[in-house]
């Protein structure tokens, strides 16, 4: 998300009357049924242990996770960086709540089905040729999970709450958003590593 870091909030000239806070929902509640449906499907896929269902969840979830991460980090981010400040704020309040639901759902789908798939195919066994690649993928996922959950998600939430204030602190928002820039390179690298590992696993 390069250059989103430069977000500052301008709500017009300063005056005694505080401007009205931005109206938006931090968690897009209307999308929750879709999340529940996807997770219920995941439970069914694991419970029935059907290869196609597990493969479907893993490929769809993983493909979207990697695609969204790379697209947002290296395509959308720089574009937002060149937008006007009010446009960046406008974009952020619509975009970030959706990411708050989308990314954890994709990650849960991918990891849960991936582990079951590896078990189903016998890749979890230490003697399997795929095992070293699998361990590598655990490490890659571990790094991405720590960055996403420990660094980016807290910043995302804090920015949304700040934008809800009548007078958001532009400097604070810019500081929090810089985390996306600092971690975009690591996340990008990890996603490329994931692509290498997964394509290698599929062709063993």
């Amino acid at each position, binding site marked *: 998300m390069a250059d989103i870091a430069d977000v500052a909030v301008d709500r017009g000239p300063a005056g005694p009357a505080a401007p009205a806070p931005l109206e938006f929902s931090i968690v897009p509640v209307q999308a929750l049924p879709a999340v529940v449906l996807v*997770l219920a499907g995941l439970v069914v896929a694991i419970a029935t242990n059907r290869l196609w269902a597990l493969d479907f969840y893993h490929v769809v979830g993983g493909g979207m996770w990697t695609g969204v991460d790379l697209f947002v980090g290296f395509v959308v981010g720089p574009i937002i960086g060149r937008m006007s400040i009010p446009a960046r704020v406008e974009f952020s309040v619509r975009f970030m709540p959706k990411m708050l639901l989308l990314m954890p759902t994709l990650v*849960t789908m991918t990891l849960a089905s991936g582990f079951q798939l590896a*078990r189903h195919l016998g890749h979890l066994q*230490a003697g399997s040729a795929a095992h070293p690649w699998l*361990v590598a993928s655990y490490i890659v996922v571990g790094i991405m999970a720590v960055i996403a959950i*420990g660094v980016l998600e807290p910043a995302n*939430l*804090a920015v949304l709450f700040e934008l809800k204030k009548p007078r958001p602190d532009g400097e604070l928002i810019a500081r929090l958003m810089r985390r996306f820039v600092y971690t975009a390179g690591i996340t990008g690298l990890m996603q490329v590593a994931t692509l290498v590992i997964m394509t290698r696993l599929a062709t063993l």
Partner: protein
Amino acid sequence: MTDRALPRISELGVVALVLCAISVITIAGSVPQRPPMAIVWALIGLAGAAMVVAVASLARTPLFAWSSFFLVGKWALLGYLVIAGMIEYAFVYDHTPEPQMAALSTVLLLFALDVPLLLGFAVARHQPAG
């Protein structure tokens, strides 16, 4: 009341998360053999200690936006309990051996508590105290 001197909750929470991740990788990387459980439990113990220090430090913090902390924390806790519950379900379904299961369940519990702590703190630290 933003950016006041606050304990390093985020750093401690991330350390706990990293230790949890390493312990899970150690277990998952050893399947079907028994992982080095002493190392696994040491990692889990350190993660738990980091969380206890974080919670204790936060509890002693005067002038903190507790209402924002609990608002975010309770919903995050609900969400992450669901996620942890689903992962636990998969481990039970797979008949994970008892020693590994105990360790994984403890890690999941720490994970489900750690993330709401991180999220609640990240929001509350920038909100007015009260």
